[in-house]
């Protein structure tokens, strides 16, 4: 698995959120998942993508902790690095 940069992760997370149905223009690092209408089921899918693409395991506790797009990108990038 190639080393992922934070930019790679950010792009992949953005793509996933758009696929989930979030408004692309509203996706910023500060955006809260609740405001994007991204729910716990979407976050489980995001965790599966992190595992498939970066070998990063996000547990249920991790998903409960992340509330913004930036927090998700940081957590995945940190563990992928």
């Amino acid at each position, binding site marked *: 698995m190639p080393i992922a940069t934070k930019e790679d992760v950010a792009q992949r997370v953005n793509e996933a959120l758009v*696929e*989930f*149905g979030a408004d692309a223009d509203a996706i910023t690092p500060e955006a809260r998942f609740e405001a994007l*209408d991204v729910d716990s*089921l979407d976050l*489980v*899918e995001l965790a*599966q993508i992190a*595992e*498939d693409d970066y070998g990063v395991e996000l547990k249920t506790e991790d998903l409960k902790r992340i509330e913004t797009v930036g927090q998700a990108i940081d957590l995945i990038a940190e563990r992928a690095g």
Partner: protein
Amino acid sequence: MSRRVVITGVGAVTPLGVGAEALIERWAAGESGIVDGLGTCREFDAAELLDRRAARRSDRFTQLALVAAAEALGQAGWDDARPIAAERAGCVIGTGIGGIGTIEDQHDILRDRGAGSVSPLGVPLLMSNAASGAVAMRHGLKGQCYGTVSACAAGAHAIGAGLRMIQHGDADACVVGGAESALTPLAKAAFAAMAATSPSGVSRPFDARRDGFVMGEGAGVLVLEAEGAARGRGATPLAVLSGYGATADAHHITAPEPSGDGAARAMRAALADAGRTPADVDYVNAHGTSTPLNDRSETAAIKSALGEHATRVPVSSTKSAIGHLLGAAGAVEAVATTLALQRGIVPPTVGWEQREDDLDLDYVPDRGRGLARNGHAPVALSNSFGFGGHNAVLCLEAA
């Protein structure tokens, strides 16, 4: 005296196209939507008709229901503002199988990639009540909401349940219907294994050459309202849903009771519920699957229920034009019957040519014809029967 219930909107997605208009116009013209032995909704594109989030959070059977429901509620005039309190509006949508496409896809993922890769959307997509929940959520219907599951009678049972809900005063309106999308490898193989589906790929109900049903997919949705509430807000009823009868054969896991007794009892019950007699019936929208057993026992049932009048009543099968939509069939056929009554037409049994001994009713070959005027508002029965011995019959009348 229970409340009269009217139909104020209908919607359908069928192999004849997206919209109830395509269904009735093309069927009445004797066209068929069956291609290569399947009734696929080829014109249906969820990505075009639903927003991305709704589309990815629903199995195809739910997607079909959402589009049919939007059409029905639009016609009922519920587009901009719901005309009654949310808590007084119910939603009952039936299905035969539910999200079998999702089940098959997720099983592939489980086998190939492991349990950790199974989608968290698996359960909400595959569950048989998903369509009713999704329609209620989309349109803010907060009364009773559930799915009915009775194989190929599920759509008719859903409509009957909605009728009773309003008559009983539990709701003032109910969005009812059926949805199915089971043109999947497993479902096709399983129906073929029991020799239910047609090897020739031709749906020709009541014809001597019939050799099984043609699988189809689609959805039908109707808006039912208490007549007083509907007329009070200025809505124009398309038809009256005047009666409902449901019985069980208690006979065999798939085969109908040969004499058609269970089906006949359901037809009689629907007529009695509507306060009508056999002589009042002007049209029968048959279950007419194109299987050797159903069409024979249904013909016997019609003769038993309507007596001497049976030979004078036109009987046609929507399945001749779209195939068998399983749990959606009863609802789509109720939509078609509603529009046939409204327009005063009897659509044909497309492709019917060869008579079989004892199958000697008027099956309306070739083209549709005008509905005979017998000195009263036309009355129709719509039959639905399901594997497991489920019989559900609706009585509809021109408004």
